[in-house]
């Protein structure tokens, strides 16, 4: 093959016929592949449409505006059976987002701790971390979910015999119910102030770094921000006349009313996902830290950095480059695994869509929506992580 190619190149001075021209051939095949893919998807689409029409099965998304007429166990926004399917699905999507959000944060924290613990020179700590990783990593997540859910509903008492460890906190097989402050304008202002301070702190930190580069004087930006983030909201609270009204849970009829409830379904799903995924994250973190040469750490200590500074200035900036890409994939796994919620009755997006599919019979639309929503969640997570990865990546000069 190679022989004949070089021959034709030497004998034919003029441009070779198009089927011999590698560039043109590549374009031809690209177009052919595109046409094939397009043709197959067009065929599948029209064939499905025709079959659905032949069996007189309803199609389209108009059902989204109809009344859902089913109830959802827990919701971040107000929802009742008289709302539309669209709102029901939104409730489901938010529930998925909620468990993924808390899951990712807790997993990152727990996973890093366990990963560092596994490298500890303390024999006990490192063996405990190792066994945690081995056990959690090797039991299927679905079984773990059933296990945690069973613990919640089997071992806690009924609401009438609820455990009451602290005033205003109840633990029973309906979940963890605790008192929360009654809503008051003060809390909104406090929240806004808190966020503003975090933003200001970020700028302060940047300015501090610049000043340090110029003058060599370090600025304790983190401590300053933390202090302000505590003091300012408290000040606002006093200015509003320090409201103390609480919504205290009370046993009324079957269940508690008032307060905030963390349902057993949410708790066991979160627990299962966090424990399972953090075992993988721990291994990722360990690999990242071990990728740093010992010499670097010794060198850092030799120039007089404190152990915290060694971690912050030498190990982490380099380890993160190794850690972030596999960490992203674990975060995506967690989000996708959250669809197992349907097994233990947490009203996530898949669960709500399943009910919708069953009431409307529009399985294709429903499954398409599940795919789009998970794709959106996954792509946003990975877009964020890619941005972060770029920031952390080695900048070549």
């Amino acid at each position, binding site marked *: 093959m190679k022989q004949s190619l070089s021959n034709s190149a030497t004998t034919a001075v003029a441009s070779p016929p198009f089927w011999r021209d590698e560039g043109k051939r590549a374009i031809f*095949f690209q177009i*052919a592949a595109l046409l*094939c893919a397009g043709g*197959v998807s067009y*065929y*599948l689409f029209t*064939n499905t449409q025709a*079959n659905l029409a*032949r*069996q*007189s*099965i*309803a199609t389209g998304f108009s059902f989204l505006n109809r009344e859902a*007429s*089913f*109830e*959802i*166990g*827990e919701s971040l926004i107000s929802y*009742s*059976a*008289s709302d539309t399917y669209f709102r029901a699905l939104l409730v489901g999507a938010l529930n998925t987002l909620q468990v993924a959000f808390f899951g990712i944060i807790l997993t990152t924290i727990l996973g890093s701790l366990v990963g560092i613990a596994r490298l500890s020179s303390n024999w006990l700590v490192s063996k405990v971390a190792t066994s945690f990783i081995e056990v959690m990593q090797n039991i299927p997540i679905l079984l773990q979910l*059933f296990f945690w*859910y*069973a613990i*919640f*509903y*089997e071992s806690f008492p*009924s609401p009438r015999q609820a455990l009451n460890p602290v005033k205003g906190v109840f633990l029973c*097989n*309906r979940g963890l119910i605790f008192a929360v402050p009654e809503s008051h304008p003060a809390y909104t202002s406090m929240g806004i102030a808190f966020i503003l301070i975090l933003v200001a702190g970020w700028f302060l930190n940047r300015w501090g770094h610049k000043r340090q580069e110029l003058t060599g004087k370090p600025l304790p930006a983190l401590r300053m921000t933390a202090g302000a983030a505590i003091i300012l909201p408290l000040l606002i609270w006093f200015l509003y006349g320090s409201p103390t009204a609480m919504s205290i849970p009370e046993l*009324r*009829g*079957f*269940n508690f*009313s008032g307060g905030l409830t963390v349902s*057993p*379904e949410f708790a066991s799903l979160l627990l299962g996902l966090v424990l399972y995924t953090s075992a993988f994250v721990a291994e990722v973190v360990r690999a990242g830290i071990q990728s740093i040469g010992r010499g670097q750490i010794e060198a850092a200590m030799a120039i007089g950095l404190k152990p915290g500074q060694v971690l912050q200035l030498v190990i982490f900036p380099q380890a993160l480059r190794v850690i972030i890409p596999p960490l992203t994939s674990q975060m995506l796994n967690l989000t996708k695994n959250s669809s197992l919620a*349907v*097994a*233990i*009755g947490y*009203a996530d997006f898949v*669960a709500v869509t*399943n*009910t919708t*599919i*069953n*009431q*409307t*019979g*529009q*399985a294709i639309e429903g499954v398409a929506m599940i795919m789009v929503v998970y794709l959106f969640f996954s792509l946003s997570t990975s877009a964020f992580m890619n941005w972060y990865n770029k920031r952390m990546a080695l900048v070549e000069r």
Partner: protein
Amino acid sequence: MKFSKTLVLVLSLSLMLVSFAYAGKDLDAVRAKGFLQAGANGSVFGFGMPDAKGVWKGLDVDTARAMAAAIFGDASKVKFTPLTAQQRFTALQSGEIDVLTRNATRTLSRETQLGLNFVAVNYYDGQGFLIAKKLGVKSAKELDGATVCVLPGTTTEQNAADFFRTNKMAWKPVVIENTSELAKTFFAGRCDVLTSDASQLAGTRAIAPNPTDYMILPEIISKEPLAPAVRHGDDQFRDIIDFSVLAMINAEELGITSKNVDEMLKSKNPVIQRFLGVSAGNGKALGLDEKWAYNIIKQVGNYGEVFERNVGVNTKLGLERGLNALWTNGGLMYSPPFK
């Protein structure tokens, strides 16, 4: 070279898809296959569930056997596919099964939007509530604020929402996909009540750790006419499925049982002669053997026999005939004339 091979493969695969998409009519397909593929529940005792030896048992299962007896003259020529509440209609629409005999409620939207045809009802059910006696609740109207265990993908979810809305009561559903997981959760006390069709509640109560601790509340909050279903598109097949169910009811009305059906062949009653195919006509009209109704009764039994064998008072479920008695006995079971 490699690429064109792949292309050929893709093209031939898509051509195969074409041929699958346009299979022949349902009845011809069933006959060509040599057996009837029926969708059954798989986990509801008394309606559709394999026993310890793996033999399918239940009211719905026997209904499907009657259909096989009508089509093939052999009640054993049926295979069962266990389906969840969510899979069942898709399985029927896609042609994975020929007929659905899986305690499915006939509703307007299922007939129209799902493209299904329901046939004669083989069990009149209604949705109720199962509750622990120790809660001291006597009526479903006292359930304000209750947590309710419910199966997804059924009319049950919607009925419960309607009931609590009409009575202006608050509630919280716990929706779990797997029937046995749901029952476990309920018995552990995660929910105050379990809601489902009354017949299924009787089955769930029967497998409770201590059945006498639980009671079914008196309110029946919905109508659930459970009927077999076929997909749109083959009217002859639909008629056969329909009259297979009706034949069992008609036989009970005429007093024909699996025990006495051979003697009944000698009956002088023209109605019975027509029904059992002694005087020809019905079989030809349906496109079946004239013996089709005889085969159903001989091999499966009449409706009363099937009911008592699977769910009646002498079984673990212990259900009364109630609405499912013949119309002559105050029930709703009524067959059109076989002529």
